[in-house]
Protein backbone atom coordinates (compact mmCIF):
# COMPACT_ATOMS: atom_id res chain seq x y z
CA UNK A 1 0.00 0.00 0.00
CA UNK A 2 1.09 3.55 -0.67
CA UNK A 3 2.86 4.97 2.38
CA UNK A 4 0.75 8.17 2.44
CA UNK A 5 -2.51 6.32 2.08
CA UNK A 6 -1.47 3.86 4.72
CA UNK A 7 -0.68 6.57 7.26
CA UNK A 8 -3.84 8.55 6.56
CA UNK A 9 -5.77 5.34 7.08
CA UNK A 10 -3.88 4.65 10.31
CA UNK A 11 -4.58 8.20 11.52
CA UNK A 12 -8.32 7.65 11.15
CA UNK A 13 -8.25 4.15 12.67
CA UNK A 14 -6.26 5.23 15.74
CA UNK A 15 -8.36 8.37 16.28
CA UNK A 16 -11.60 6.42 16.11
CA UNK A 17 -10.22 3.65 18.33
CA UNK A 18 -9.16 6.24 20.90
CA UNK A 19 -12.36 8.27 20.85
CA UNK A 20 -15.02 5.63 20.49
CA UNK A 21 -13.55 2.57 22.20
CA UNK A 22 -10.74 3.42 24.62
CA UNK A 23 -12.26 6.59 26.10
CA UNK A 24 -15.11 4.43 27.35
CA UNK A 25 -12.70 2.24 29.31
CA UNK A 26 -12.49 3.90 32.70
CA UNK A 27 -11.18 1.25 35.06
CA UNK A 28 -10.09 1.15 38.67
CA UNK A 29 -6.59 -0.11 39.24
CA UNK A 30 -6.17 -1.97 42.57
CA UNK A 31 -9.94 -2.02 42.76
CA UNK A 32 -10.16 -0.37 46.21
CA UNK A 33 -12.47 2.66 46.17
CA UNK A 34 -9.49 5.02 46.36
CA UNK A 35 -7.98 3.66 43.15
CA UNK A 36 -7.16 6.21 40.46
CA UNK A 37 -9.23 6.33 37.31
CA UNK A 38 -7.52 6.18 33.96
CA UNK A 39 -7.94 6.03 30.21
CA UNK A 40 -5.51 4.09 28.04
CA UNK A 41 -4.08 6.39 25.34
CA UNK A 42 -3.21 4.68 22.05
CA UNK A 43 -3.13 7.62 19.59
CA UNK A 44 0.65 8.43 20.09
CA UNK A 45 1.26 5.24 18.14
CA UNK A 46 0.49 7.19 14.95
CA UNK A 47 3.65 9.28 15.42
CA UNK A 48 5.69 6.32 16.64
CA UNK A 49 4.95 4.26 13.53
CA UNK A 50 5.68 6.87 10.84
CA UNK A 51 8.53 5.84 8.48
CA UNK A 52 12.14 6.17 9.73
CA UNK A 53 13.18 8.90 7.31
CA UNK A 54 10.28 11.30 8.10
CA UNK A 55 11.81 14.75 8.75
CA UNK A 56 11.28 16.29 12.19
CA UNK A 57 9.14 19.18 10.98
CA UNK A 58 6.68 16.80 9.34
CA UNK A 59 6.54 14.80 12.59
CA UNK A 60 5.86 17.98 14.54
CA UNK A 61 3.03 19.15 12.28
CA UNK A 62 1.42 15.71 12.13
CA UNK A 63 1.73 15.42 15.91
CA UNK A 64 0.06 18.78 16.34
CA UNK A 65 -2.81 17.75 14.04
CA UNK A 66 -3.31 14.42 15.79
CA UNK A 67 -3.21 16.09 19.21
CA UNK A 68 -5.74 18.73 18.19
CA UNK A 69 -8.04 16.08 16.75
CA UNK A 70 -8.00 14.13 20.02
CA UNK A 71 -8.36 17.36 22.01
CA UNK A 72 -11.44 18.44 20.12
CA UNK A 73 -13.12 15.15 21.03
CA UNK A 74 -12.06 15.13 24.68
CA UNK A 75 -12.62 18.79 25.66
CA UNK A 76 -8.99 19.20 26.72
CA UNK A 77 -8.02 22.30 24.67
CA UNK A 78 -4.32 21.77 23.79
CA UNK A 79 -3.13 19.22 26.35
CA UNK A 80 -2.89 16.16 24.07
CA UNK A 81 -1.33 18.34 21.37
CA UNK A 82 1.33 19.73 23.73
CA UNK A 83 2.30 16.27 24.96
CA UNK A 84 2.33 14.73 21.48
CA UNK A 85 4.50 17.51 20.00
CA UNK A 86 7.18 16.78 22.61
CA UNK A 87 7.03 13.10 21.66
CA UNK A 88 7.33 13.97 17.96
CA UNK A 89 10.28 16.26 18.59
CA UNK A 90 12.27 13.66 20.52
CA UNK A 91 11.42 10.68 18.30
CA UNK A 92 14.35 11.08 15.90
CA UNK A 93 16.85 11.49 18.75
CA UNK A 94 15.63 8.31 20.45
CA UNK A 95 15.81 6.41 17.15
CA UNK A 96 19.37 7.69 16.61
CA UNK A 97 20.36 6.32 19.99
CA UNK A 98 18.71 2.94 19.48
CA UNK A 99 19.50 2.06 15.87
CA UNK A 100 22.92 0.84 14.68
CA UNK A 101 22.76 3.05 11.58
CA UNK A 102 21.43 6.53 10.87
CA UNK A 103 17.59 6.44 10.64
CA UNK A 104 17.67 8.13 7.22
CA UNK A 105 19.45 5.09 5.76
CA UNK A 106 16.42 2.88 6.33
CA UNK A 107 14.47 3.62 3.18
CA UNK A 108 10.77 2.79 3.04
CA UNK A 109 10.77 1.15 6.44
CA UNK A 110 8.89 2.01 9.58
CA UNK A 111 9.59 1.22 13.25
CA UNK A 112 8.23 -2.23 14.00
CA UNK A 113 9.17 -5.37 15.87
CA UNK A 114 10.32 -6.95 12.62
CA UNK A 115 12.56 -4.06 11.60
CA UNK A 116 14.04 -3.21 14.99
CA UNK A 117 13.82 -6.33 17.14
CA UNK A 118 11.81 -6.73 20.31
CA UNK A 119 13.83 -4.91 22.93
CA UNK A 120 14.79 -1.78 20.92
CA UNK A 121 11.19 -1.42 19.80
CA UNK A 122 9.84 -1.78 23.36
CA UNK A 123 12.39 0.70 24.72
CA UNK A 124 11.54 3.12 21.90
CA UNK A 125 7.78 2.92 22.49
CA UNK A 126 8.03 2.77 26.29
CA UNK A 127 10.38 5.71 26.75
CA UNK A 128 8.50 8.08 24.46
CA UNK A 129 5.11 6.99 25.74
CA UNK A 130 6.15 7.46 29.37
CA UNK A 131 7.37 10.97 28.54
CA UNK A 132 4.08 11.70 26.79
CA UNK A 133 2.05 10.46 29.77
CA UNK A 134 4.10 12.47 32.28
CA UNK A 135 3.64 15.68 30.30
CA UNK A 136 -0.04 15.06 29.61
CA UNK A 137 -1.09 14.21 33.17
CA UNK A 138 1.01 17.02 34.67
CA UNK A 139 -0.70 19.47 32.31
CA UNK A 140 -4.05 17.97 33.13
CA UNK A 141 -3.71 18.31 36.90
CA UNK A 142 -2.15 21.78 36.32
CA UNK A 143 0.26 21.64 39.25
CA UNK A 144 1.95 19.18 41.57
CA UNK A 145 -0.32 19.48 44.61
CA UNK A 146 -1.28 15.80 44.74
CA UNK A 147 1.91 14.29 43.41
CA UNK A 148 1.14 10.78 44.72
CA UNK A 149 -2.16 10.56 42.88
CA UNK A 150 -0.48 12.02 39.78
CA UNK A 151 2.30 9.40 39.81
CA UNK A 152 -0.22 6.60 40.30
CA UNK A 153 -2.31 7.94 37.43
CA UNK A 154 0.76 8.15 35.16
CA UNK A 155 1.96 4.66 36.09
CA UNK A 156 -1.41 2.93 35.71
CA UNK A 157 -2.33 4.52 32.41
CA UNK A 158 1.18 4.01 31.06
CA UNK A 159 1.00 0.27 31.76
CA UNK A 160 -2.44 -0.14 30.16
CA UNK A 161 -1.50 2.04 27.19
CA UNK A 162 1.56 -0.14 26.61
CA UNK A 163 -0.61 -3.26 26.72
CA UNK A 164 -3.00 -1.80 24.16
CA UNK A 165 -0.14 -0.63 21.94
CA UNK A 166 1.41 -4.09 22.04
CA UNK A 167 -1.92 -5.64 21.11
CA UNK A 168 -2.26 -3.24 18.18
CA UNK A 169 1.30 -3.84 16.98
CA UNK A 170 0.99 -7.61 17.26
CA UNK A 171 -2.27 -7.64 15.33
CA UNK A 172 -0.86 -5.58 12.49
CA UNK A 173 2.51 -7.29 12.11
CA UNK A 174 0.75 -10.64 11.91
CA UNK A 175 -1.19 -9.33 8.96
CA UNK A 176 2.01 -8.18 7.26
CA UNK A 177 3.71 -11.55 7.58
CA UNK A 178 0.64 -13.27 6.23
CA UNK A 179 0.60 -10.94 3.26
CA UNK A 180 4.25 -11.44 2.35
CA UNK A 181 3.92 -15.22 2.26
Amino acid at each position, binding site marked *: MNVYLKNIFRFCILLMLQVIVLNKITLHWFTSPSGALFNPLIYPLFILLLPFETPVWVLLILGFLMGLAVDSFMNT*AGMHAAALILLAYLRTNVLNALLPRNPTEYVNMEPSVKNMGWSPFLVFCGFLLLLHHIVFFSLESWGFNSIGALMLKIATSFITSMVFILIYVLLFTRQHVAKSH
Partner: protein
Amino acid sequence: MRNFILIIRRFFNLILFALLEIVSIVLIARSRTIQGDDIISSSNAVAGIVYKKKTDLFYYMNLGSMNDSLLSENMRLRKIVDALHSVDTLKDFTVQRALPTKDTSVHVVQYASYVYRTARVIDNQVDNVNNYITINRGLKDGIAKGMSVISGNGLVGRVEYVSQHFASVLSILNTNKYQVSARLKDGTFKSTNWDNERPDVLVMKEMPAEAKVKKGDSVFTTSYGNTFPPDVLIGTVTSVEINKKSGRQQIMLKPATNFRNLQYVYVLDNQMEVERKQLTEPSNKKP
Protein backbone atom coordinates in the same frame (compact mmCIF):
# COMPACT_ATOMS: atom_id res chain seq x y z
CA MET B 1 20.47 38.96 7.05
CA ARG B 2 22.16 35.92 5.54
CA ASN B 3 23.32 34.81 8.97
CA PHE B 4 19.84 35.26 10.30
CA ILE B 5 18.40 32.98 7.62
CA LEU B 6 21.16 30.46 8.26
CA ILE B 7 20.33 30.40 11.96
CA ILE B 8 16.66 29.93 11.21
CA ARG B 9 17.46 27.07 8.84
CA ARG B 10 19.71 25.42 11.37
CA PHE B 11 17.26 25.61 14.25
CA PHE B 12 14.11 25.28 12.14
CA ASN B 13 12.92 22.16 13.98
CA LEU B 14 13.49 23.65 17.40
CA ILE B 15 11.69 26.87 16.43
CA LEU B 16 8.76 24.94 14.98
CA PHE B 17 8.62 22.81 18.11
CA ALA B 18 8.59 25.86 20.39
CA LEU B 19 5.98 27.56 18.22
CA LEU B 20 3.60 24.61 18.25
CA GLU B 21 4.06 24.15 22.00
CA ILE B 22 3.22 27.80 22.54
CA VAL B 23 0.10 27.46 20.40
CA SER B 24 -1.12 24.51 22.44
CA ILE B 25 -0.29 26.15 25.76
CA VAL B 26 -2.23 29.24 24.65
CA LEU B 27 -5.16 26.99 23.78
CA ILE B 28 -5.03 25.43 27.24
CA ALA B 29 -4.74 28.81 28.92
CA ARG B 30 -7.65 30.18 26.93
CA SER B 31 -9.89 27.28 27.83
CA ARG B 32 -9.29 27.90 31.52
CA THR B 33 -10.90 31.31 31.24
CA ILE B 34 -14.66 31.62 31.23
CA GLN B 35 -15.25 32.02 27.47
CA GLY B 36 -12.64 30.46 25.25
CA ASP B 37 -13.62 26.84 25.03
CA ASP B 38 -15.92 27.39 22.08
CA ILE B 39 -13.24 26.65 19.46
CA ILE B 40 -12.30 23.31 20.84
CA SER B 41 -15.14 21.79 22.76
CA SER B 42 -17.27 18.85 21.96
CA SER B 43 -20.18 21.12 21.21
CA ASN B 44 -18.45 22.06 17.99
CA ALA B 45 -20.03 20.72 14.89
CA VAL B 46 -17.87 17.79 13.75
CA ALA B 47 -17.34 16.19 17.10
CA GLY B 48 -21.01 16.67 17.88
CA ILE B 49 -22.06 14.78 14.77
CA VAL B 50 -19.67 11.88 15.41
CA TYR B 51 -20.82 11.57 19.00
CA LYS B 52 -24.42 11.67 17.86
CA LYS B 53 -23.88 8.78 15.45
CA LYS B 54 -22.14 6.86 18.20
CA THR B 55 -24.92 7.37 20.73
CA ASP B 56 -27.55 6.51 18.14
CA LEU B 57 -25.88 3.11 18.07
CA PHE B 58 -25.58 2.69 21.85
CA TYR B 59 -29.11 4.08 22.26
CA TYR B 60 -30.62 0.85 20.98
CA MET B 61 -28.44 -1.33 23.14
CA ASN B 62 -29.42 0.53 26.31
CA LEU B 63 -33.16 0.74 25.68
CA GLY B 64 -33.92 -1.62 28.55
CA SER B 65 -32.16 0.27 31.31
CA MET B 66 -33.34 3.56 29.84
CA ASN B 67 -36.93 2.37 30.13
CA ASP B 68 -36.38 1.53 33.79
CA SER B 69 -35.00 4.96 34.60
CA LEU B 70 -37.93 6.62 32.81
CA LEU B 71 -40.38 4.49 34.75
CA SER B 72 -38.85 5.42 38.08
CA GLU B 73 -38.84 9.04 37.02
CA ASN B 74 -42.53 8.88 36.12
CA MET B 75 -43.27 7.30 39.46
CA ARG B 76 -41.51 10.09 41.28
CA LEU B 77 -43.38 12.76 39.32
CA ARG B 78 -46.72 11.14 40.02
CA LYS B 79 -45.95 11.18 43.71
CA ILE B 80 -45.19 14.90 43.58
CA VAL B 81 -48.40 15.62 41.68
CA ASP B 82 -50.36 13.73 44.32
CA ALA B 83 -48.63 15.62 47.09
CA LEU B 84 -49.40 18.97 45.47
CA HIS B 85 -53.06 18.12 45.09
CA SER B 86 -53.44 17.47 48.77
CA VAL B 87 -51.65 20.57 50.03
CA ASP B 88 -53.86 22.86 52.06
CA THR B 89 -52.25 26.25 51.46
CA LEU B 90 -54.28 27.99 54.15
CA LYS B 91 -52.90 25.85 56.94
CA ASP B 92 -49.50 25.26 55.45
CA PHE B 93 -47.79 28.60 55.79
CA THR B 94 -44.85 28.01 53.47
CA VAL B 95 -45.22 26.74 49.95
CA GLN B 96 -42.22 24.88 48.60
CA ARG B 97 -42.97 24.87 44.88
CA ALA B 98 -44.65 27.38 42.66
CA LEU B 99 -48.35 26.75 42.32
CA PRO B 100 -49.98 28.53 39.39
CA THR B 101 -53.35 29.42 40.83
CA LYS B 102 -56.32 31.51 39.78
CA ASP B 103 -57.94 31.39 43.17
CA THR B 104 -57.23 34.77 44.79
CA SER B 105 -58.60 33.78 48.16
CA VAL B 106 -55.55 31.60 48.78
CA HIS B 107 -52.34 33.52 49.24
CA VAL B 108 -49.59 31.70 47.38
CA VAL B 109 -46.12 33.16 47.24
CA GLN B 110 -44.64 32.38 43.86
CA TYR B 111 -40.91 32.86 44.05
CA ALA B 112 -39.64 30.61 41.32
CA SER B 113 -41.17 29.01 38.33
CA TYR B 114 -39.25 26.40 36.40
CA VAL B 115 -39.58 25.09 32.90
CA TYR B 116 -38.27 21.53 32.57
CA ARG B 117 -36.65 20.50 29.29
CA THR B 118 -35.63 16.92 28.68
CA ALA B 119 -32.33 16.15 26.95
CA ARG B 120 -30.43 13.04 26.01
CA VAL B 121 -26.82 12.67 27.11
CA ILE B 122 -24.64 12.03 24.04
CA ASP B 123 -21.23 12.17 25.69
CA ASN B 124 -20.21 11.77 29.29
CA GLN B 125 -16.89 12.10 31.14
CA VAL B 126 -16.11 10.96 34.66
CA ASP B 127 -12.34 10.77 34.91
CA ASN B 128 -11.05 14.22 34.06
CA VAL B 129 -10.21 17.16 36.29
CA ASN B 130 -13.26 18.99 34.93
CA ASN B 131 -15.94 16.66 33.62
CA TYR B 132 -18.28 17.77 30.84
CA ILE B 133 -21.49 16.14 29.70
CA THR B 134 -22.66 16.87 26.14
CA ILE B 135 -26.42 16.93 25.58
CA ASN B 136 -28.42 16.99 22.35
CA ARG B 137 -30.20 20.28 23.04
CA GLY B 138 -28.87 23.74 22.19
CA LEU B 139 -29.79 27.34 21.59
CA LYS B 140 -32.60 26.34 19.23
CA ASP B 141 -34.30 24.40 22.02
CA GLY B 142 -34.05 27.28 24.47
CA ILE B 143 -30.98 26.16 26.40
CA ALA B 144 -28.84 29.04 27.70
CA LYS B 145 -25.60 29.29 29.62
CA GLY B 146 -25.96 29.00 33.38
CA MET B 147 -29.09 26.83 33.47
CA SER B 148 -29.01 24.06 36.05
CA VAL B 149 -29.24 20.42 35.05
CA ILE B 150 -30.72 17.58 37.11
CA SER B 151 -31.33 13.90 36.46
CA GLY B 152 -34.15 11.68 37.66
CA ASN B 153 -32.13 10.93 40.78
CA GLY B 154 -30.45 14.20 41.71
CA LEU B 155 -28.26 17.13 40.82
CA VAL B 156 -26.04 16.90 37.70
CA GLY B 157 -24.46 20.30 36.95
CA ARG B 158 -24.71 23.56 35.09
CA VAL B 159 -24.78 24.44 31.37
CA GLU B 160 -21.44 25.92 30.42
CA TYR B 161 -21.25 26.22 26.62
CA VAL B 162 -24.07 26.22 24.09
CA SER B 163 -24.08 25.81 20.32
CA GLN B 164 -27.06 25.67 17.98
CA HIS B 165 -27.96 22.03 18.61
CA PHE B 166 -25.67 20.88 21.43
CA ALA B 167 -24.66 22.04 24.86
CA SER B 168 -21.82 21.18 27.25
CA VAL B 169 -22.77 20.72 30.88
CA LEU B 170 -20.07 21.09 33.53
CA SER B 171 -21.04 18.42 36.07
CA ILE B 172 -20.55 18.80 39.83
CA LEU B 173 -17.45 16.65 39.33
CA ASN B 174 -15.27 19.70 38.67
CA THR B 175 -12.37 21.45 40.33
CA ASN B 176 -12.89 25.01 41.53
CA LYS B 177 -15.20 26.07 38.70
CA TYR B 178 -18.28 26.48 40.88
CA GLN B 179 -19.53 25.23 44.21
CA VAL B 180 -22.85 23.83 45.25
CA SER B 181 -24.53 25.22 48.32
CA ALA B 182 -25.82 22.23 50.30
CA ARG B 183 -28.20 21.84 53.22
CA LEU B 184 -28.11 19.11 55.84
CA LYS B 185 -31.10 17.59 57.57
CA ASP B 186 -30.86 20.00 60.51
CA GLY B 187 -30.69 23.08 58.30
CA THR B 188 -26.96 23.78 58.41
CA PHE B 189 -25.70 24.80 55.00
CA LYS B 190 -22.22 24.73 53.51
CA SER B 191 -20.69 24.44 50.07
CA THR B 192 -19.81 21.02 48.75
CA ASN B 193 -16.93 20.10 46.43
CA TRP B 194 -15.65 17.18 44.49
CA ASP B 195 -12.60 15.37 45.90
CA ASN B 196 -11.08 15.28 42.40
CA GLU B 197 -10.38 11.56 42.37
CA ARG B 198 -13.48 9.41 42.26
CA PRO B 199 -16.83 10.08 40.61
CA ASP B 200 -18.54 8.56 43.69
CA VAL B 201 -17.40 10.98 46.39
CA LEU B 202 -18.26 14.59 47.19
CA VAL B 203 -16.82 16.38 50.21
CA MET B 204 -18.20 19.01 52.59
CA LYS B 205 -15.24 20.39 54.49
CA GLU B 206 -15.06 22.44 57.69
CA MET B 207 -18.54 21.70 58.98
CA PRO B 208 -19.00 23.20 62.46
CA ALA B 209 -18.98 20.62 65.26
CA GLU B 210 -22.52 21.40 66.37
CA ALA B 211 -24.04 20.35 63.05
CA LYS B 212 -25.88 17.09 63.65
CA VAL B 213 -25.17 14.63 60.90
CA LYS B 214 -25.10 10.88 60.68
CA LYS B 215 -24.46 8.26 58.06
CA GLY B 216 -27.29 7.90 55.57
CA ASP B 217 -28.66 11.44 55.83
CA SER B 218 -29.77 13.08 52.60
CA VAL B 219 -28.25 16.38 51.51
CA PHE B 220 -30.20 18.87 49.40
CA THR B 221 -29.35 22.03 47.47
CA THR B 222 -30.33 25.46 48.73
CA SER B 223 -31.27 28.46 46.63
CA TYR B 224 -28.33 30.48 47.93
CA GLY B 225 -25.82 31.47 45.32
CA ASN B 226 -28.55 31.84 42.72
CA THR B 227 -27.31 28.85 40.74
CA PHE B 228 -29.43 25.84 41.52
CA PRO B 229 -33.07 25.35 42.47
CA PRO B 230 -33.61 24.52 46.15
CA ASP B 231 -34.37 21.04 47.52
CA VAL B 232 -32.78 18.96 44.78
CA LEU B 233 -31.13 15.85 46.19
CA ILE B 234 -27.32 16.05 45.98
CA GLY B 235 -26.45 12.82 47.71
CA THR B 236 -26.36 10.81 50.89
CA VAL B 237 -23.78 10.96 53.68
CA THR B 238 -21.40 7.99 53.60
CA SER B 239 -18.96 8.93 56.34
CA VAL B 240 -18.21 11.68 58.85
CA GLU B 241 -14.67 12.43 60.03
CA ILE B 242 -13.95 14.73 62.95
CA ASN B 243 -10.75 16.77 62.96
CA LYS B 244 -9.51 16.46 66.56
CA LYS B 245 -7.57 19.71 66.52
CA SER B 246 -10.26 22.08 65.32
CA GLY B 247 -13.30 20.00 66.25
CA ARG B 248 -14.66 20.47 62.76
CA GLN B 249 -16.24 17.73 60.74
CA GLN B 250 -15.55 16.57 57.20
CA ILE B 251 -18.48 14.89 55.52
CA MET B 252 -18.22 12.52 52.57
CA LEU B 253 -21.23 12.27 50.26
CA LYS B 254 -22.22 9.75 47.65
CA PRO B 255 -23.83 11.64 44.74
CA ALA B 256 -27.43 10.67 44.08
CA THR B 257 -26.77 10.75 40.34
CA ASN B 258 -24.79 7.87 38.93
CA PHE B 259 -22.45 9.78 36.63
CA ARG B 260 -21.15 6.63 35.02
CA ASN B 261 -24.37 5.81 33.22
CA LEU B 262 -26.24 9.03 32.75
CA GLN B 263 -28.71 8.84 29.87
CA TYR B 264 -31.45 11.44 30.32
CA VAL B 265 -31.28 14.79 32.08
CA TYR B 266 -33.63 17.71 32.69
CA VAL B 267 -32.48 21.26 32.00
CA LEU B 268 -34.20 23.75 34.30
CA ASP B 269 -35.06 27.22 33.13
CA ASN B 270 -35.78 29.48 36.08
CA GLN B 271 -38.19 32.08 34.71
CA MET B 272 -37.76 34.40 37.66
CA GLU B 273 -33.98 34.36 37.56
CA VAL B 274 -33.68 37.65 35.65
CA GLU B 275 -35.79 39.45 38.21
CA ARG B 276 -33.79 37.99 41.07
CA LYS B 277 -30.50 38.90 39.42
CA GLN B 278 -31.65 42.48 38.84
CA LEU B 279 -32.42 42.76 42.52
CA THR B 280 -29.15 41.33 43.79
CA GLU B 281 -26.66 42.69 41.30
CA PRO B 282 -26.42 46.34 42.47
CA SER B 283 -25.56 45.11 45.97
CA ASN B 284 -22.88 42.81 44.57
CA LYS B 285 -21.18 45.61 42.69
CA LYS B 286 -20.43 47.59 45.84
CA PRO B 287 -16.88 46.97 47.11
